[in-house]
């Protein structure tokens, strides 16, 4: 029974579907980068959409090749990207809050106001300490 199945065709179909889903995710997140109104909203679109799209494209490629060392390399890239993309987004977002990049005017900042005030006043204290030294 298993002799009648064309495994290459099955791998090609699964790989095609995964690659197309990944490319659609990447295109949507790029359109979001171009059209969203605020730096923080744009960064959120990039961090989630592009990372998921990249993981789907690489999974499709690993399924097409069907070899252990290729699978290991693909898992290395996916694990590293999924680990470092949120860290990089957090660092860049914290830098943007420190540098007073403006928010969108319709963003609800009620619960965030205390943190913003504390962060900016701590920043000022730090500057004053540096001047005294």
């Amino acid at each position, binding site marked *: 029974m298993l002799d009648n199945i064309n495994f290459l065709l099955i791998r090609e179909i699964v790989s095609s579907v995964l690659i197309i889903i*990944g*490319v659609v995710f*990447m295109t949507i997140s790029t359109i979001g*980068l171009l059209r969203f109104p605020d*730096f923080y909203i744009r960064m959120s679109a990039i961090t989630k959409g592009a990372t998921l799209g*990249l993981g789907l494209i690489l999974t499709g490629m690993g399924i097409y090749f069907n070899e252990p060392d290729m699978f290991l390399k693909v898992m290395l890239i996916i694990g*590293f990207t999924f680990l470092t993309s949120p860290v990089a987004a957090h660092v860049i977002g914290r830098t943007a809050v420190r*540098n007073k990049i403006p928010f969108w005017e319709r963003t609800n900042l009620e619960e965030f106001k205390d943190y913003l005030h504390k962060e900016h006043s701590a920043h000022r204290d730090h500057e004053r300490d540096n001047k005294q030294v």
Partner: protein
Amino acid sequence: MSLFSFTLIFAMASLSLCLVMTGIRFAIGPTLPDRITAFDLFVANIIGMVAIYTEFTGNEDFIDVGIILSLFGFLGSISFAYYLMKSTR
């Protein structure tokens, strides 16, 4: 032309379109963190293009480029953010 190679060509074309749109945001981005996130998306797009090119040619050596790019993209964005935090202080 089979359905599989048509899929690969379609994916390559739409990723190239994504690169062009990211370049537009890189050019008109009002602040420096916008440009850093656009650079992140550049690196992710190019890793995807390397993966699809590996599937085109069937040569398995090209995927090592993806590993190195994923390392250097993280280092680039982290060092840009660190430099930005240091320079405004």
